[in-house]
């Protein structure tokens, strides 16, 4: 028990140093530094608003917030998985020379994405106030989708970082996949224009699941059903389970591929 505790402490320092390193190397030499993580989603939002508000703005209330709900979740997913993908390969130098738990590299990358997300979330709330969206106690429930998408990101990150070691093509395939996923996440359009069956199919997409939850709380003023909560948690845990399984199975083989 005591040895496990000291092990945990040891990894805690290792983990925080890895987070620091990722942070410093990412923003090295950039003047605005971490502010970029707010600026870039805001630009996306601006461009989308200019283009799409003509098409959908009239039928969707608080269209900017509607867009923002979609963008904030999607860009968090996009950032976290894209950073996460390289977690193993870029640290190959370390794990082939020093015995460290490999998942720490991925978790460190996820912390970085989470911080970016947190900052964007602050801007999101400012937008909500500016747009006259009423704040209610229900907003506290947003913790739930945030937790779910965090788990999804870690799960997908585990899977991707392992695949990336085996096939470097993943680095080129994943951006294509996320682009398709973006269109399947109803970020700027209203799903009600689609037939029922397609609307249902979209729920397979964890990013969409979380966007819907956000919109229900922020714009529609209600908390989704218990079953919906279970669907989200189930998807997240499934992805984590697959990721852990892959790491467990290939833990000793990664070093042959780097």
């Amino acid at each position: 028990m005591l040895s496990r505790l000291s092990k945990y402490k040891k990894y805690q320092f290792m983990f925080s140093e890895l987070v620091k390193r990722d942070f410093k190397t990412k923003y090295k030499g950039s003047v605005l530094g971490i502010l970029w993580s707010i600026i870039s989603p805001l630009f996306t939002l601006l461009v989308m608003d200019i283009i799409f508000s003509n098409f959908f703005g009239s039928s969707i209330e608080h269209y900017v917030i509607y867009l923002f709900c979609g963008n904030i979740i999607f860009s968090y997913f996009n950032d976290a998985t894209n950073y996460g993908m390289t977690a193993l390969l870029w640290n190959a130098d370390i794990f082939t020379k020093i015995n460290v738990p490999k998942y720490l590299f991925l978790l460190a990358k996820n912390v970085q994405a989470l911080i970016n997300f947190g900052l964007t979330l602050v801007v999101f709330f400012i937008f909500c106030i500016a747009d006259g969206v009423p704040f209610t106690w229900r907003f506290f429930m947003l913790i739930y989708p945030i937790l779910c998408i965090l788990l999804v990101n870690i799960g997908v990150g585990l899977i991707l970082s392992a695949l990336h070691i085996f096939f470097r093509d993943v680095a080129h395939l994943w951006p294509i996949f996320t682009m398709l996923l973006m269109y399947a996440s109803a970020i700027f359009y209203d799903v009600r224009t689609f037939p029922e069956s397609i609307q249902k199919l979209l729920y397979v997409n964890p990013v969409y699941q979380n966007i819907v939850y956000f919109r229900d709380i922020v714009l529609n003023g209600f908390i989704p059903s218990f079953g919906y909560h279970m669907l989200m948690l189930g998807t997240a845990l499934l992805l984590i389970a697959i990721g852990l399984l892959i790491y467990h199975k290939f833990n000793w083989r990664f070093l042959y591929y780097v």
Partner: protein
Amino acid sequence: MSVLDVRDVSIIYRVGDFKDIGLKDWVVKKLKKQYVAESFYADKHITFSLERGDMLGIIGSNGAGKSTLLKAISGIMRPSEGEVICNSNVVALLELGSGFDGELTVKENTFLRGALLGYTRKFMLDKYQEIIEFAELQEFEDRPFKHLSSGMKSRLAFSIASFVQPEILILDEVMAVGDGGFRRKSEEKTREIIAGGATTILVSHDLEQIRSMCSKILWIHKGEQITFGDQTQEICDDYQAFLDGVLSLEAVKEKYSR
């Protein structure tokens, strides 16, 4: 009571096409049945055990399986057969200079490396000055790591590792670096660590160094254990004779198999 027990350890190493090929090549090679993935024994039935304070020298020509064996001892690889029994804190120094981040400063890298080697934050804060002074890099602590010369890099790596007071310290051809002055210092430091009760494993092509420092010798040739014992000088003499072509491998094997 031995600190390290290596029992009949064999390690299968995999080489072949799986490394660095893209998805396309993989599919094509699979289809054409040209896909080659070979396994070979990097180490075969290695058995030895070390007591507290022992200094083991591992000798053998290139490709003998020395580094692979060290990776199994430090827990980076898992033996395919047999087992490594070790309940101590192992610090391995394999290939100095790798695992550092060129963009970070010397100080940041020192903390990162310390964390990866399993030191606590408190320990690093206490020892940082000593480490940097030992490495003689005081003027460089805020410079990017990539500005250091390769000698300086290995000096830093050695300093960080040597302050750990590990129960087992593994040095893989790391003492042959640095200038004469630092080399003497690092040898002294290593002696100090051994005097403190640590068990040390040294891989070196410098036979004089092995003769003067080691209390036990393990000779491996192409994965095979030729001999293990504490008659250091005798084994070194035979190894030298073998290298000079005076003694054949069969003769040596014959001698030690009795």
